[in-house]
């Protein structure tokens, strides 16, 4: 089975998968995001960084449809988005993980990943209730795909374990697996390495790069560990107090004076 997504246009101008134009988001009187624009190319790893409270997670929630910005345009895969619900956006091919793991704790690893296949299963209630026939066929096909993901993430041994019982690092990996099971065009990772030890971080880095290489999945990630960000991302966008203060490849961003000031503080 081919699980290759459409790959980026290798030569010439890269294709834009997601384009955010002048996004502003506020809660009551509090401005979370002010006039931010950036784009994500097909097939790249795009990092969103910034100090605490910079609006990174809000940005992800906007992309994912949890928040609806008051101003600005969102273009995904060549189409403009208009007031879509989060579950409809999942159908468009955007999957995500959460900062505080949001797995289905009572369910096994396998069931969590199968739930990730939700958008790819479309037999209606009638067939499901009947079980034999089309619905069973569909289960088998999707189960096969989920087994690929399990192999890929090296979690064969825990496939039947309820995820609530797994250690933190493995839960993070299962959550990545659930997002991958959806075969997303765009994968959003909200601090995939937060709270991990060095070894777990290295594993996660490897998986993220592998996902990008082998499946060609476009990835947008929020991360605090600068070393990791510089290593794995193609381009970085820097936010501070809800505004964009830097955008470009890792080396350029690292040497940008505004970015350095935002992170280290400036003496007045």
């Amino acid at each position, binding site marked *: 089975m081919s699980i290759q997504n459409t790959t980026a246009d290798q030569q010439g101008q890269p294709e834009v998968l997601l384009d955010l134009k002048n996004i502003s988001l506020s809660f009551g009187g509090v401005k979370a995001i002010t006039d931010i624009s950036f784009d994500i190319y097909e097939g790249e790893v795009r990092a969103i960084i910034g100090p605490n409270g910079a609006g990174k997670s809000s940005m992800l929630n906007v992309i994912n449809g*949890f928040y609806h910005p008051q101003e600005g345009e969102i273009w995904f895969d060549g189409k403009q988005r208009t007031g879509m619900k*989060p579950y409809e956006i999942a159908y468009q091919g955007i999957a995500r993980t959460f900062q505080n793991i949001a797995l*289905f704790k009572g*369910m096994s690893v396998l069931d969590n990943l199968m*739930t990730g296949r*939700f958008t790819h299963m479309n037999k209606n209630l009638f067939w*499901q*209730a009947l079980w034999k026939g089309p619905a069973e066929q*569909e*289960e088998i096909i999707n189960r096969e795909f989920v087994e690929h993901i399990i192999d890929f993430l090296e979690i064969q041994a825990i496939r039947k374990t309820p995820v609530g019982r797994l250690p933190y690092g493995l839960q993070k990996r299962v959550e990545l697996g659930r997002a991958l099971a959806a075969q997303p065009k765009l994968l959003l990772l909200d601090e995939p390495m937060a709270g991990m030890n060095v070894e777990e971080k290295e594993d996660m880095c490897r998986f993220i790069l592998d996902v990008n290489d082998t499946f060609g999945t476009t990835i947008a990630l929020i991360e605090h560990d600068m070393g990791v960000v510089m290593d794995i991302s193609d381009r970085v966008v820097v936010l501070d107090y809800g505004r964009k203060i830097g955008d470009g490849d890792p080396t350029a961003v690292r040497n940008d004076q505004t970015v350095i000031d935002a992170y280290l503080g400036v003496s007045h």
Partner: protein
Amino acid sequence: MSADFLYTLEVILNGLMAGVMYSLVALGFVLIFKASGIFNYAQGVMALFAAMTLVGIQTGQIPFAHLINAIFGTEMHHFGWQVPAFLAIILTVGVMVLFAMIVEKYILHHLVNQEPIILFMATIGLAYFMEGFGDIMWGSEIKTMDVGIPSGGSLWLEEYTLGWAAEGERYWGMYIDKLDMVATLVAVILVVSLTLFSQYTKTGRALRAVADDHQAALSVGISLRAIWVIVWSIAGFVALVAGIMWGAKSGVQFSLSLIALKALPVLMLGGFTSIPGAIIGGLIIGVGEKLFEFAIGPMIGGATENWFAYVLALMFLVFRPQGLFGEKIIERV
């Protein structure tokens, strides 16, 4: 076997079957509570409403007949036809699904992310609304439910067990109501199919996913609104089954809605979030109250069945507040 032993066995068997009837009601509560964290006070009234609708459709009653007659001065009550039980049940299921959609659209949808107590209040309002609505729609007189379930004691069992007692003892065979047997069978089928459905289908997994984490469920493409309609439809279906069984046993009337009160101790015992808990809890309460009435009742003047279940549930609350199968409440500091 001694007659005493056989009497006790009979009491236990009858207790188990009464327990199944309690479980049927408790099941509806658990389904909705698990999926949406709402304690649905209206579950009992839903059972009454479903039973009234079934009888109404079956006997060809004209809905809102009293209202229509009062407004237009007409004198009509029946269409003049009888609908076969099977077809009437299917139509009633349709009505309950429609009801689920209306509840989602006009109540739940507007109360997303509200405190549980507010949702609870909403279901209280819903219960009283449905009670009145059911009366206006189908009339408030007591109706008999006849969908062809056999009732009365099983003569075959009585004769069969007659020979079990030792020679010369006063024993007339075991009395078990056929209706109870059917109810048990139906409940077992219902629970097994619900469990299989929630374990092995896409929608079943989605139901469990929503019970665990709303945000994550949305992010994988599950529509909460669709799931709520499905959950309330299933709860409506369970209410219909409970309504049929209880209605066939004791008539379709207002007191049918009070069976919800019998489900409360079952839920305390079994836990609000566990389907097996609802079943085991029901069985324990059923057997417990029948045995207590049989063994201790005569000494203290009888009528213990009214309160025994609550006392048992209170004792459980002291030692295991989350119920037998409920999720453990662990607070990390």
